[in-house]
């Protein structure tokens, strides 16, 4: 049983204009004046209600900064809702910020194990998958090298290979359909489809509208932190295209 339920979820957080304070600054400002480093409130999600059940593949679209990635992180449990209820049944695997999460000074093999453990593998279960991960990444002897020396593309290959070696119940995907070079992209797209066939519930964010229509069973259009439209993928995608380029969509 896999289920995601959001009920009137709000997310609001504070950011400081100049990143972090120093203690010296804090003491001095606290004594003399305030507001040299004002706090800004970001209301990222505004009353999002959502119910995704077993077997569904939900696509999310929207312009940059609409709150798509924030919503995914909230679903994954990284961000807590400020108000409203979040209920998730099932083990979540998430593919976002895919090139992050490596220990730069350790080699590829060590990082395969480490990330595997992060995804809930045990030493026994990962041992059977290591060779398959290494093979899929096509990194060969580079795996003996510290990850620090990898190119961005190599890191993405490795990360993708590890992340997709698991069999998730709930899969949350953020823009990973375009990873690596051309050859790897095709391989990755195949792998994603295989994974999607296995996962019981998928939520994905993409700017590739074609693949959203092909892959998802339902779409939502997120606009300034709330759901603007929800419905069949083709329908939502068309409305979205029409909204941003009325003439092009009509042609």
């Amino acid at each position, binding site marked *: 049983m896999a289920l995601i339920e959001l009920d009137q979820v709000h997310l609001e*957080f504070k950011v400081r204009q100049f990143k972090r*304070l120093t*203690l010296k600054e804090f003491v001095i400002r606290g004594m003399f004046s305030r507001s040299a480093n004002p706090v800004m409130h970001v209301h990222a999600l505004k009353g999002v209600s959502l119910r995704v059940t077993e077997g569904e593949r939900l696509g999310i679209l929207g312009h940059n900064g609409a709150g798509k990635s924030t919503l995914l992180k909230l679903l994954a449990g990284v961000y807590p809702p400020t108000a409203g209820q979040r209920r998730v049944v099932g083990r979540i695997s998430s593919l976002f*910020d895919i090139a992050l999460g490596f220990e730069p000074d350790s080699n590829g093999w*060590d990082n395969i194990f*480490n990330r595997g453990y992060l995804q809930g593998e*045990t030493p026994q279960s990962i041992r059977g998958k290591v060779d398959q991960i290494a093979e899929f990444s096509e990194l060969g002897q580079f795996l003996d090298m510290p990850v620090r020396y990898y190119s961005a593309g190599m890191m993405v290959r490795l990360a993708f290979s590890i992340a997709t070696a698991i069999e998730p119940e709930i899969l949350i995907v953020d823009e990973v359909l375009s990873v690596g070079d051309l050859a790897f992209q095709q391989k990755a797209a195949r792998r994603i489809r295989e994974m999607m066939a296995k996962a019981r519930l998928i939520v994905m964010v993409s700017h590739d509208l074609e693949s959203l229509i092909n892959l998802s069973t339902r779409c939502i259009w997120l606009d300034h932190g709330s759901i603007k439209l929800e419905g069949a993928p083709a329908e939502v995608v068309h409305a979205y295209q029409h909204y941003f380029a009325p003439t092009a969509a009509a042609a």
Partner: protein
Amino acid sequence: MFTYLTRLWDIRHFWLSLVRMDLRTRYRRSVLGLGWSLLQPLTMTLVLCVVFAHFVKVDVRDYVPHLLTGLVCWNFLVACSVQGCQSFFLGEQYIRQTPLPLGVYPLRTAIGAVFHLSMGLLVLLLVTGILRGPASPYAYLSLLPSLALLFVFGWSVAVLAGTANVFFQDTQHLAEVGFQILFYLTPIIYRVEDLAGHQLGWLLQLNPVVPFLQLVRTPLLYGTPPSIGVLAAACGLTAVAVIAASATLRKMQDTLVFYL
């Protein structure tokens, strides 16, 4: 608290592999390997012995174990606080992707530090055994709970330091300066007795590091388990640190990610 610890235990493979990678990276860089981390207290002991033996009358058989225990324990506490400052930033990439109990990241720092502390203690056992003869089995046995106490204290301190550093970016710098001053207020290169009768002797009574030093020093130097008073003081300090750290973790678990 118990459920928190079970959750930490469930993801033990993850933090153990982080610690393993940390240690391996650290030792791969130097030919001396493990010896490198012991070289600093050993050299310092040697230098101070030569200098002090020259103008103060010290018995090397007393002074070497005294100094070395002091340095090894001191290094542990400094490592937990100063490296602890970076613990959440080191784990930032994981925090941003997966909701894990936040205590994992300071734990990684504390286990690394306790590993070095244990290595130091092994050398100390050897040195004191040679210089002062073997202590009673009870004294040696008392080192195990003391080590556990130091570990829990160090972990809590790392939690507090890490959180402080997330909010105030100069915490690590201030901690380094503070520890440099505290070093001279701590009976490491001198003995508690040396300040007895001095006007400032009371400062040592307030120094939170002293009970932890005595926890290790008494068995190794005098061959007896630490006194109940010392043990109580160390337990009390650890309890305070644990309470502060768990309150911090509870408060920050959901929200720390917004400040990274």
